């Protein structure tokens, strides 16, 4: 099989970290800024960053629709933190004019765990990755408030008020509320590549 090419949306945020991890896993990588950069990709990742900034830049560049199209057409796509927000069909507590790619039938709540002082590290139980639990880095992170029946819950984190959904998969689309690109653990990326 040919070596797959993974694009990472490179408008703003921690895109270099995703590129580094994919590089280390032996696939071809490409930063994506324009719709032309989407051609011939086998998978796409949308990194952490500021979702309002990414949304504005994506609209300016005219990549909102092209990215939404490739996600809808079944391109394996990974979204982390802001990337999860950009892939969600519904955003709670976002700006009223915030545009996203959509494609995942979930409702996410932005900054759900609180402001930066509440940002935290915690073990995320992800049976799909086996043991041990995944080291989750949560930075002004969202959580999944609702998910349609066709969405698989891949990861949850225990909070004082109960457990929260922080990783999901629907078909070829995977999203995490935390930052696997900041953890010294590449299992989320490897699992994602196995969907190609």
């Amino acid at each position, binding site marked *: 099989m040919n070596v797959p090419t993974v694009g990472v949306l*490179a*408008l*703003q*945020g*921690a*895109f*270099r*970290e995703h590129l580094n991890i994919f590089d280390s896993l032996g696939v071809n990588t490409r930063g994506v*800024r324009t719709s032309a950069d989407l051609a011939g990709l086998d998978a796409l990742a949308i990194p*952490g*960053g*500021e979702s*309002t*900034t990414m949304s*504005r*830049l994506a609209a*300016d560049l005219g990549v909102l629709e092209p990215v939404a199209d490739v996600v809808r057409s079944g391109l394996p796509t990974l979204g982390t*933190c*802001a990337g999860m927000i950009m892939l969600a069909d519904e955003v709670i*507590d*976002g*700006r009223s004019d915030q545009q996203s790619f959509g494609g995942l039938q979930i409702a996410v709540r*932005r*900054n759900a765990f609180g*402001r*930066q*002082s*509440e*940002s*935290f*590290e*915690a*073990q*995320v*139980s992800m049976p799909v990755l086996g043991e041990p*639990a995944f*080291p989750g*880095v*949560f*930075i*002004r992170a969202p959580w999944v408030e609702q998910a349609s029946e066709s969405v698989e819950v891949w990861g949850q*984190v*225990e*909070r*004082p008020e109960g457990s929260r959904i922080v990783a999901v998969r629907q078909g070829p689309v995977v999203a995490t509320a935390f*930052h696997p690109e*900041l953890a010294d653990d590449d299992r989320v990326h490897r699992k994602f590549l196995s969907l190609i």
Partner: protein
Amino acid sequence: MSQDSANPVTGTDRVKRGMAEMLKGGVIMDVVTPEQARIAEDAGACAVMALERVPADIRAEGGVSRMSDPDMIDEIVATVSIPVMAKVRIGHFVEAQILQSLGVDYIDESEVLTPADYANHIDKWQFTVPFVCGATNLGEALRRINEGAAMIRSKGEAGTGDVSNATTHMRKIRGEIAQLSALSPDELYVAAKEIQAPYDLVAEVAREGRLPVVLFTAGGIATPADAAMMMQLGADGVFVGSGIFKSGDPARRAHAVVQATTHYDNPDVLAKVSRGLGEAMVGINVDELPVDHRLAERGW
């Protein structure tokens, strides 16, 4: 890191430094009112810096410059959904305690305000909120990181609209990193002594060829071209202070600087976004400022 997921850990190095990673490729804008904060967010700023006066006004009005009124910070926090930063005086750990209690997302221990301690900076390890600090060279950057700073910005000369010092400081920091990388391990002990930085951090920088935290740039950036140049010189992102809201058309200029920071290596886009921005801030040549009026000299 805790193994017990029911007891998450806040304020770790990874979440403090990671927060800055999420700002990369973005523009952080000084704002003095909720309306300006809204304009900044609309333009695509990745964060705002809430303060009472932009550096150009601090410079013009003189007097002691301090942390902003909590009411004003609260209003800005309530207005925007992007991260909100705020400034404290160098060494003023109680101003920092107050800002942490207000829930700001990042604290800038800043030479733009009047220093509160001419010997010591804040012990930033004592806080769960992360800090950004200014630096004019590598030794200063590593001293701040040793005190717990989770992000560094090159200082430049704030409130001038003159980008020359930002250029000097960014080139200096990058150049010193390159020099360290070229040294053999037994030379790093003396190098650490010379730049007055802890050996462990010096060895880490020499090994990795980069700072262990995100490096933004600040001080005098007034145009999209200024922002793009600093990115080409190796900045991870840009702070713009007086340059936006002291210009003729802030909303348009803010949006142009955001685009220029993303497309810093694409002159066609830079040409397009540089058009029709109205008047830039008037500016002051740093050369004409008496040395004791230069803010970058503050910090030790």
